[in-house]
């Protein structure tokens, strides 16, 4: 029974959500909304499992004095500080001027923005290493990237202007032509492919042919 009931639930719920797309009548028109609310409640409950797991793994590391165990203490302390402040502030925890907001603005935001900004360096090193004319496929990748990159900054057009090139082969023109033509075609093929893959995967899940996500008995 531990597998059959979940399979049944998946199948029935799946079919209902497929047909709701075609039915504008109540309650089918509400199902999407309801599900989104249900899911956010489930996720909010489930995060307790995640948080406990994080604390458990960190505590375990401290207890066993594994390498870098001191940093696990930092994790636990930071987690507790922000959680306690967040719960103490009440519903208006995000309001400007609260302690939670201070942590958000001066600790959380710099951290995530900077982590995001590391991409600037990684994009450079990845293009330095990967964009080499190793074979025909790689050459296409390289040439397209190169042309679009030049076309996306005003410097490219400035050089073309100095060289008195015809307007139609200005880097910005070439760049937007590649974006509009090849990028559109390629993205379209990928998008259609992904959609077919999703239809097939969803169908397999609904029919219970694909059931790895339910685990074992």
């Amino acid at each position: 029974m531990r597998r059959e009931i979940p399979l049944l639930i998946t199948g029935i719920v799946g079919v209902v959500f497929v047909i709701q797309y075609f039915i504008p009548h109540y309650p089918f028109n509400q199902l999407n909304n309801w599900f989104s609310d249900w899911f956010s409640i489930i996720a909010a409950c489930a995060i307790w499992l995640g948080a406990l797991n994080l604390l458990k793994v960190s505590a375990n590391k401290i207890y066993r004095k594994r390498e870098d165990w001191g940093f696990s203490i930092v994790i636990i302390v930071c987690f507790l500080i922000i959680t306690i402040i967040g719960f103490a502030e009440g519903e208006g925890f995000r309001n400007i001027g609260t302690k939670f907001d201070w942590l958000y603005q001066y600790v959380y935001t710099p951290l995530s923005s900077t982590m995001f900004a590391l991409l600037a360096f990684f994009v450079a090193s990845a293009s330095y290493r990967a964009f080499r004319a190793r074979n025909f496929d790689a050459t296409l990748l390289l040439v397209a990237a190169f042309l679009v990159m030049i076309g996306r900054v005003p410097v490219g057009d400035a050089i073309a202007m100095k060289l008195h090139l015809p307007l139609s082969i200005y880097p910005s023109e070439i760049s937007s032509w590649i974006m509009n033509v090849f990028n559109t075609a390629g993205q379209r093929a990928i998008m259609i492919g992904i959609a077919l893959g999703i239809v097939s995967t969803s169908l397999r899940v609904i029919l219970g042919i694909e059931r790895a996500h339910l685990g074992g008995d």
Partner: protein
Amino acid sequence: MLKQILVYALILALSLIGYFVITEPIILGPTASMVIIILIALVLLYILVRTIMGSFVGRRTVFTFVAIAVILPFFMTVDQPIKVSPEVQQLYDAVMALRPGSKVLVSFDYDPPSAPELQPMAESFFALCIERDLKIIIMGLWPQGPQQADLAMQTILREEAFAGKSWKYGTDYVNLGFQSGNEFVIQRMGGEIGSMFHNDFYGTPYDSLPLVRNIKNFSNIDFSFNLSAGYPGSVEWVQVAVDRYGLKMGAGNTAVQAPQMYPYLRAGQLTGLLGGLNGAAEFEKVTGRKAKGTRFMVSQSFSHVVVIAFIIIGNAAFFLGEKRRKKPEGETS
């Protein structure tokens, strides 16, 4: 270990000097800027020659150059031409075609990390709307979106150009705040916007805001503009609001998201697109209000040139027949 401590101490010292000792902004004149540019070019040339001779630079050299290319232009005086692309023009035309008093829905679906790209767009868009007397309804599918909107609106209203306008909250613009639920929020707004936003960002009930009181759903919105940095964002807006409810929409995207939007642009599902900082700078040009976007563009151009230079250096290394190090790299088949 000692070396590490010394490095940390050096960084601390530099920070203290920068913070307490140098109090005036640093500005380099055109000549000094030119000299620096030439110097960097020479160093890059040197690296190219060295590479051809057979000794390669590592990741860290690339990193250093990227940092230099981004930071130095802050202090330099350089001017560069900007050309407006059709998708930017299209958005501008669409906004200009709206009659005064039309209602524009602006969704802020990004957070501070994406602000360098999207904030200049938000500011220019607001400026254009206020100039054209368009009523603005702000919302966000990302928790921090409405705050960004608030910042942008404050920045614009402080500007001299708009000092004469008595632009009032509640009648001229409203900020409905954040709502969780991703694309389902859009879906439900198609039925009734008020059902998703019981109160606005400041806690005022939806029905007591004169601007939105009579707005039931998307059929009452004349145009919408979506600033998006990922999911949920422009894709979801197109799939739900445009495809299902026929909303007319333009978008401002981070440069990484923008390529994905081109098919929608071509298919007519999107009316205009601003892609990345470049899009922001172009929009500033077409609206005639030069600001942050134009300024950051110089750093952008510099770092681009550096990346391109390193691609050339990398290929020089490759063609000179050096056996590849390590292991085969990213090839897809």
